């Protein structure tokens, strides 16, 4: 029987989904899936779990999901590519499965390898096992259990030690729901070899209206001295549920930066776990969220300073309108031996409506004594002083507000080094503002 810490979730298509999964019969994969099924059988996490206190998946649990159809959609059915000005290899997944006709990842630059998961399981399962089999992402992550049980496709992106990959690798996940709700659980594995440089651009998108659930798990390891820039744009339709978990492990001297822009889905949770495994590494988590109507957007981060001399910087900024609700949970753990840790966290929200709401919860757990750790949070309407100043120069209220909001979000985007990627995100922010104010 399910405990009160879970919501009973009848996933009726689970049998059909499981039967259609690639790689059945591989012992390590069967075992991983069995473990996923066992842990997900209780249902979805309930708001009685501290980590899910502000985000209720009850509406998701009420949906009856169908197995995604195996056939992909035609070119014309995909929306415009948000990153069409960005070069580099691109993988397109429709309803969680690779669409070979839309994807371009042959002729890769030196030192970069990309394997589509379902293809790889058919062609070279030993290679996939070497990268996936060793991961055990299930402890305490309820959504990871669903992903482990039901992931049908995804990819492995790997760089060789020292490889400097110029153009970002783009992963596009498109929901194309039919009449029935559909769910998919993409699995992405990123391995940046020692001293390599790689940029990854994820985009999650889909049409408005029809319900869908995407539950991606992105498993990242940044090798010694490697640099990984990880951009994510989330623009699914308002009928979508998006529960994403990114787990990043950083070796010594590694640099990991995450840039999120969350605009879509009716309910979205972006959970990022970072663990420092080696000294002198640093991570930058930057997240932007803009929500309106009755959208719910949850950013939950856990940074585990397991070793000394690492630096983490976290800035989450968002704009909420109408009755939208935002959640920011930022946990920073500094273990007993992690001396000289330098951690800072900031969450700022502009509320454009008196009915918009942000719940922000910093959690600093510090067990070492020689550390610098701080956090801050602000929430409020745009400052009257700023509006007055701009209006006193002849800008109408709407234009003044739009400039302030654009500036507020633009500070985040300014940190993205790849100009075409930054510009693509800036367009989305400007469009959102154009519709809002």
């Amino acid at each position, binding site marked *: 029987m399910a405990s009160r810490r879970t919501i009973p979730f009848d996933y009726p298509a689970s049998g059909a989904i499981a039967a259609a999964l690639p790689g059945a019969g591989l012992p390590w994969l069967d075992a991983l899936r069995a473990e996923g099924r066992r842990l997900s059988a209780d249902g979805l996490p309930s708001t009685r779990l501290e980590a899910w206190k502000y985000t209720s998946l009850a509406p998701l649990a009420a949906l009856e999901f169908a197995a995604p159809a195996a056939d992909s959609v035609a070119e014309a059915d995909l929306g415009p590519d948000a990153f069409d000005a960005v070069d580099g290899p691109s993988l397109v997944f429709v309803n969680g499965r690779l669409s070979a006709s839309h994807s371009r990842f042959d002729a890769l630059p030196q030192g970069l390898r990309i394997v589509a998961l379902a293809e790889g399981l058919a062609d070279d399962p030993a290679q996939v096992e070497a990268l996936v089999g060793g991961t055990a992402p299930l402890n305490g992550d309820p959504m990871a259990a669903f992903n482990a049980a039901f992931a049908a496709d995804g990819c492995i992106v790997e760089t060789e030690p020292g490889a400097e990959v110029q153009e970002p690798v783009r992963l596009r996940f498109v929901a194309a729901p039919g009449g029935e709700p559909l769910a998919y659980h993409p699995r992405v594995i990123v391995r940046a070899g020692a001293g390599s440089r790689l940029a990854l651009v994820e985009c999650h998108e889909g049409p408005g209206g029809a319900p869908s659930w995407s539950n991606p798990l992105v498993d990242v390891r940044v090798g010694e001295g490697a640099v990984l820039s990880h951009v994510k744009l989330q623009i699914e339709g308002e009928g979508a549920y998006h529960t994403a978990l990114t787990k990043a492990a950083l070796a010594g001297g590694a640099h990991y930066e995450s840039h999120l822009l969350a605009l879509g889905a009716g309910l979205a949770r972006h959970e990022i776990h970072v663990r420092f495994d080696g000294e002198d590494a640093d991570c930058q988590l930057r997240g932007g969220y803009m929500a309106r109507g009755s959208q719910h957007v949850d950013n939950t981060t856990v940074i585990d300073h397991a070793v000394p001399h690492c630096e983490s910087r976290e800035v989450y900024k968002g704009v909420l309108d109408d009755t939208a609700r935002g959640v920011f949970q930022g946990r920073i753990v500094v273990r007993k031996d992690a001396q000289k840790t330098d951690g800072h966290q900031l969450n700022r929200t502009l509320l454009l409506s008196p009915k918009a709401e942000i719940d922000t919860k910093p959690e600093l757990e510090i067990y070492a004594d020689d550390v610098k750790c701080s956090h801050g949070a602000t929430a409020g309407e745009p400052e009257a002083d700023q509006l*007055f100043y701009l*209006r*006193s*120069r*002849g800008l109408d209220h709407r234009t003044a507000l739009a400039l*302030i909001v654009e500036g*507020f979000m633009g*500070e985040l985007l300014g940190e993205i080094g790849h100009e075409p990627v930054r510009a693509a995100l800036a367009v989305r922010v400007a469009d959102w503002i154009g519709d809002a104010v």
Partner: protein
Amino acid sequence: MLTIENLHATADGKPILNGLDLQVNAGEVHAVMGPNGSGKSTLSYVIAGREGYEVTQGSIAYQGQDLLAMSVEERALSGVFLAFQYPVEIPGVGSATFFKTAVNAARKHRGEKEYDAMEFLKLIREKRAALGIDDGMMRRALNVGFSGGEKKRNEMLQMALLEPTLAILDETDSGLDIDALKVVASGINGMRAPERAMVVITHYQRLLDHVVPDKVHVLSSGRIVRSGGSELALELERSGYAGLGLESSAAA
């Protein structure tokens, strides 16, 4: 151009202006001086239309129109400009982007063609040079991290770009070293024109060494208590506000 009659105003419910009269004609530069708490900033905010300042009695006519009936942006578009004592920092908003938006809003209002990027670049380069503002400042976010002097020069640049009909300068001289003061003063003098009026609000006389006003008014407890020519400023410099029998209400 500007006619203020019997103006009574409150700030956050507290009476600050208590029957102020002021007449400024086109082509004139007036100085309004007064001790702390006399109502200098309140006067500037009431003219610009800031929220939280309520006019309880009296009137302000600007070019024959009821200024108090106009919104903040209508006043600006009609040619009223306030140089802020404390210019506001707006993170993430590029100075040049903002200036172009403001200049084009004014041009559109006047039925003129909006400047494109190249035309605007030419205009701003010309205006910048006169105020000694480098290009780097244009690329920074509006007022963010600017020094006191940079903020005030930035206000002068906006005034030069917007070419107002009536400019109110609220303690533009405060916090400036002598070099910055001279730059600001030459900015003001360069804007003097037969069709333009300026009201320079200041606590000290020193700006008036460089900008010689046509008229000087002394503000105390929310009223103009003395008016005269530029020699009144010198008298104040010698005797202080106390010499006129005026106390700083902040100090009282």
